[in-house]
């Protein structure tokens, strides 16, 4: 499996696991009727730090095994795959933002609005990584 495809797998799986944990925790606090407190903000910061650490560590672990391949710049096919995947993710992001705007017109608490926007952003990133993997599997 090429380095770029492994990188896409790392991005997708780490985001699924770590943001899954974050939104799971969020649902528990919401169920406990304590949304929007300081602990939620701290959990978000912890989540972002965990994601960065996990992605950097996993990328280093993969790059150590094939350092020459990891150092190569993206070639034309890999750039095209990135562009195609980003376009697909953008449609999801744009649609999600429109839905969030409609949701915002119902005057929900700021806590829900911001987290729904975060969920849309995370989902579009996961879609982007997933689309990259599919294109790598297909060849282009």
């Amino acid at each position: 499996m090429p380095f770029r495809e492994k990188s896409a797998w790392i991005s997708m799986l780490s985001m699924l696991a770590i943001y899954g944990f974050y939104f799971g925790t969020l649902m528990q606090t919401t169920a406990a009727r304590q949304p929007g407190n300081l602990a939620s903000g701290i959990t978000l910061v912890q989540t972002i730090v965990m994601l960065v650490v996990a992605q950097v560590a996993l990328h280093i672990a993969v790059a150590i095994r094939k350092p020459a391949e990891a150092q190569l710049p993206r070639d034309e096919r890999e750039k095209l795959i990135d562009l195609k995947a980003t376009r697909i993710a953008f449609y999801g992001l744009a649609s999600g933002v429109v839905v969030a705007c409609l949701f915002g017109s119902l005057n929900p608490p700021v806590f829900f609005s911001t987290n729904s926007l975060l969920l849309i952003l995370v989902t579009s990133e996961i879609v982007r990584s997933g689309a990259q993997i599919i294109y790598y599997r297909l060849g282009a």
Partner: protein
Amino acid sequence: MAIATISNEIRRLRFAHGEMTQQQLAEKIGLTRQTVNAIEQGKYSPSLEAAFRISAVFGQPLENVFHYSEGG
């Protein structure tokens, strides 16, 4: 509009040039081995620049390496 296909002779030319590996060809033209493999299998159509670089490696004109045909 008819569906066009681009085929190529890269695999044959690699073997005719001292059984050159995909990795060796990739290094000569500045692409990854996976991209050379995708081009060879017809899954990816290279840019004009990459096509010229591939042809130059084999010392062949472009039309001897790549074939364009319009389907019916």
